[in-house]
């Protein structure tokens, strides 16, 4: 039963993060939502590793998820900085038009 409950935890984290990523306007807050979603993926991957596939490749999934987190953070901050420098906004709604 622990296996299913942990997957439930992963689904919960993923859905909370998804809600945040969809509903927040600020780019930094959207990134927080994405972080939570990847957190859910990490829990699910660790769960699968422990109960179904305790192989090295199972762990590599977690490594890839952690790298995705780091890449998302770095690019997110860089994009926020670039947009803010160009037109002093940090909200997605104000950056929806292509022309600056």
């Amino acid at each position, binding site marked *: 039963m622990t296996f299913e409950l942990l997957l439930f935890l992963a689904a919960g*984290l993923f859905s909370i993060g998804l809600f945040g990523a969809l*509903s927040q306007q600020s780019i930094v807050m959207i990134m927080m939502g994405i972080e939570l979603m990847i957190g859910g993926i990490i829990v699910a991957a*660790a769960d699968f590793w422990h109960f179904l596939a305790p192989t090295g490749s199972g*762990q590599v999934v977690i490594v890839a998820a952690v790298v995705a987190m780091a890449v998302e*953070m770095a690019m997110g901050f860089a994009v926020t900085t670039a947009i803010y420098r160009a037109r002093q906004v940090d909200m997605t709604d104000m950056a929806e038009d292509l022309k600056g």
Partner: protein
Amino acid sequence: MGTTAAVLLWTLGVLALACGVLVFTLNSMARVTFALLASLVCVGGVVTVLGLPYLGVVIVLMMAMEMVIMAVFMIAYMMNPAGLTPMSMLHNKRGALAISGVVFAALTSAVFVVPWPDRPRLRSKDTTVQVGMSLMGDQMLTMVTLGFVLLATMVGATVLATNRGRYDRFGDDLDQRPARDPAGGGVGR
């Protein structure tokens, strides 16, 4: 799985979910960031309890650094960082709630409906060695790809974030020495 592990998993899991909810309900940016840190530290704890101590502790380490940096950007770019006056910066809340609700329901039903195979397999004794051997062995291509992705990220993020090129630093004829930088450095400038 023993009783201690089960208790730990329950505590960490409930805490992770509670802090995850707090991320989108609190007002203060600093509190939001550290609620997310608490949630992800619990995720690292879950990974550790599941028998992957190296990855778990690395997640804790990385998330602590990331979230502190995130707090800096948060306060730099967002209005009302201390949350002294309640405010909401949401769009399409109902749609987002509907979509994430449907996704959650779908995932949960899949979790409990799918007949998961029950194969208690032999787990490696030293999981740190296991992941190292895997990354440097049969998953070498993954490792190399991740390395290139990180390198591309470093270059791309720096290019996006900086607004100064070499002509700003070295002058129009690129002969200005030392470079004109807004802040001095420690190596010869």
